[in-house]
């Protein structure tokens, strides 16, 4: 089983990197973009376990390490 954990900045948290990317896209002439926020994606291979157990494990991983929940939200998705 594979899984993906996505970590994104909470709204209201200033994202200077996202802002810089937004500016670069504008200067490249890529139009129609209102704003950019940068985040992280973790592609994870699961060794074993049932779906519910795996999801709980991944939530634990996100809470303990992958996300800083003061400033970031996370989303766990099981694939296949």
């Amino acid at each position, binding site marked *: 089983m594979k899984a993906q954990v996505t970590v994104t900045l909470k709204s209201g948290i200033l994202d*200077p990197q996202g802002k810089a990317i937004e500016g670069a896209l504008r200067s490249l002439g890529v139009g129609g973009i209102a704003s950019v926020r940068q985040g992280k994606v973790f592609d994870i291979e699961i060794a074993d376990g049932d779906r519910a157990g795996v999801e709980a494990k991944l939530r634990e991983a996100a809470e303990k390490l992958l996300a800083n929940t003061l400033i970031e939200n996370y989303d766990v998705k099981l694939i296949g």
Partner: protein
Amino acid sequence: MKAAVIVFPGINRERDMARTLKLVSDREPAMVWHADTALPAGTDIVALPGGFSYGDYLRCGAIAARAPVMEAVRTFAANGGLVLGVCNGFQILCEAGLLPGVLMRNTGLKFVCREVYLRVERSDTPFTRGYNAGQVICVPTAHGEGNYVADSETIARLEGESRVVFRYTAPDGALAPEWNFNGATNAIAGIVNARGNVLGMMPHPENHVEAALGPTDGRGLFQGLEEYLDRAA
């Protein structure tokens, strides 16, 4: 002073920190490896130096904050032991939950390496007793992620409890956006925990302690600690 300097892979200021601790206390600090699970017996201050622990992978200080030695540091702090985190050390303390908030990318997106001015907000902590409240000190800074951020409740609590110990200001102590070079909330450069025994700060007082190298404004922090611990011993 019986200091312990925690050494994580990827940090680079541990020798500056050790040299300064030796200078003020005339005692060689213990260098404690990140994989150790205990601090040397009798340790009365723990220093988390600056650098790029674990390459700052994931988030600054995130992986170091979960290193085995941090359990010992956590227990030490819970028992009232003094903990000083500088630069990456401050980031590690925040990630470890020993201090509130988080250090985000500087608003200007640039790594800033130069001397800055800090206003010492209070002199009644073990870390700042070598200064007068309101005094402005000049110390170097070197970081790309020192923009202190916390939710408004936390900021209100920090301010209400006078836990902001250092603020970025002009040389005359005035607050001004151009002197808050990393965009930190309320120009916060250093904070203490509720109990007042854990200090995190972004700039490097340990680098301004010897007249041969220039200003010595950082020395008061370490001299004050030495006197405090000497008296307690």
